[in-house]
């Protein structure tokens, strides 16, 4: 049979580049699509941190009378406290935009994934490419956000810059879970709005974003423990103003975010293959 004969090198050379860089070609395409609403992306990337930092860090902060402990006997401004949380939330917001309708659409209304599948690119590479492109957008958003935080004087420690990375990973962890789900959706029955209202918004409110998680009744604190946003926010605080927490807890934050990312990413690939390789 033909498959017993090893194919010649020239017969297989045509796919060397797609086998290696296929995911990047998909990412190129996704980035080109983002360029269509590039001005909106840029405006929100600059506008959001300005509005939030001003409203919370300047406005709300004037009402926050109780001194916020940094956990080491020192005090920290409300602005510095809330800024790392807003940074991580910004990445999660991008994730909740880019991994919902654009993914659903690429299967359904503008089925570019199905088109891509006829090319040498594999299903797993399609999933990877989508994720890579969103990671780049999240990183860019976080970079701009961080720049505005600096302008507000919201980052006491130079280590705070590492928060750009942890925030991006936080967005990624939430994002791959969303994408693994949206990739299974075949009919739009408002699931995307449900994700936004019943998952993203509660995460935002109950992940120790605006007040320390310990302030919540114990029976609500689990939301924070499960929320990648809480882990990302806490890491950001450690980096930004040296919030004190046991070393093992910081390790848990990192491990938790990475485990969710790896498991969610793998799930995205599996779901993509199940859907496209029929």
């Amino acid at each position: 049979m033909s498959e017993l004969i090893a194919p010649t090198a020239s017969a297989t050379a045509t796919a060397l580049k797609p086998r290696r860089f296929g995911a990047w070609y998909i990412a190129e395409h996704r980035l080109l699509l983002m360029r269509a609403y590039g001005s909106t992306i840029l405006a929100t990337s600059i506008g959001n941190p300005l509005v939030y930092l001003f409203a919370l860090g300047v406005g709300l902060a004037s009402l926050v009378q109780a001194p916020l402990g940094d956990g080491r006997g020192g005090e920290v401004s409300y602005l510095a406290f809330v800024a790392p949380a807003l940074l991580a939330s910004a990445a999660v917001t991008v994730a909740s935009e880019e991994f919902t309708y654009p993914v659903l659409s690429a299967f359904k209304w503008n089925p570019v994934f199905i088109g891509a599948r006829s090319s040498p690119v594999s299903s797993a590479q399609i999933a990877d490419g989508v994720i890579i492109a969103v990671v780049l957008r999240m990183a860019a958003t976080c970079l701009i956000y961080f720049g505005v935080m600096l302008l507000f004087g919201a980052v006491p420690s130079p280590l705070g810059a590492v928060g750009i990375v942890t925030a991006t990973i936080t967005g990624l962890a939430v994002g791959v879970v969303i994408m693994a789900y949206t990739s299974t959706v075949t009919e739009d029955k408002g699931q995307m709005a449900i994700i936004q209202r019943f998952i993203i918004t509660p995460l935002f409110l109950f992940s120790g974003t605006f007040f320390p998680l310990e302030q919540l009744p114990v029976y609500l604190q689990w939301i924070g423990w499960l929320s990648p946003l809480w882990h990302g926010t806490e890491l950001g605080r450690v980096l930004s103003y040296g919030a004190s927490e046991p070393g093992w807890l910081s390790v848990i934050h990192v491990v938790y975010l990475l485990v969710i990312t790896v498991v969610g990413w793998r799930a995205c690939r599996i779901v993509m293959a199940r859907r496209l390789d029929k």
Partner: protein
Amino acid sequence: MSPLLTRLDSVPAPVITASSLTKKYEEFAAVDGISFEVAPGESFGLLGPNGAGKSTTMRMLGAVSTRTGGDLSILGLDPDRYGPEIRSQLGVVPQTDNLDQELRVRDNLIVYGRYFGIPRSVVAKRADELLEFAQLTDRAKAKVDDLSGGMKRRLTIARALVNEPKILLLDEPTTGLDPQARHILWDRLFRLKEQGTTLVLTTHYMDEAEQLCDRLVVVDKGTIMAEGSPAELIRLHSSREVLEVRFGSDRNAVVAEQIAGLGDRIEVLPDRILIYSADGEAELGQLLRLGLEPITSLVRRSSLEDVFLRLTGRTLIE
């Protein structure tokens, strides 16, 4: 080299070999053990009604869907192991256009060319040539959404050619297009055929199969009913001519009994009676002599539609 060896050498190896190719979804066999070969440069068709298993076959030929049984070799490679290698040498025109409607016409070609790892400068040049070929040069900057159905189809074909494929797979290439758009498309496909591109197409239009296919298989319910060139199939499974007469849907069946024995064979369809014969005019004369006056009558050459009707007892478009 002996003359025999030279001759053996010059027999080209098939670019596609399928033997007992099967695709089952749980218990249902969408493709049920079909076997065929396609020679390089050949234009090969799968003709059959909707649901015959044509698209499933095409997805397996396209190294996207994995077979559940049988053997398949495309360009000498097994799609189970060499999917990306095979797909990098194929052009695929799917049944429903899946162009990126959010991108402009030319960008669609460039983005797709990149999927194959073609460098930007090369793909940009090729995109311009393909727009020329698809007669879309003046629409290069248009949004895909603003194109007509025929233009979208031509763009999809241009996109399928961006990697200079050895085989072009076309699934129902002209379904849903108006006659003029179909003829433009056929002309483009004919040019590709002349240039030596291997074409594999599915269709449920017999005229399309007759126009484009050197050889075809008639597929129904996942199996091959017949194989040959359009002319061969017609010769083998039908008469030279067909007389079509209409007596009104309530009378057709009654009249058919009266004229039993006319021609080689008679088929009664809900809206008309088909009388197969070497000489359709003569049969019409007979019919009139019997005192029967059809509302309309038409003598035409036999087509693949008749072959299909003969083989399956059903029409292609139901």
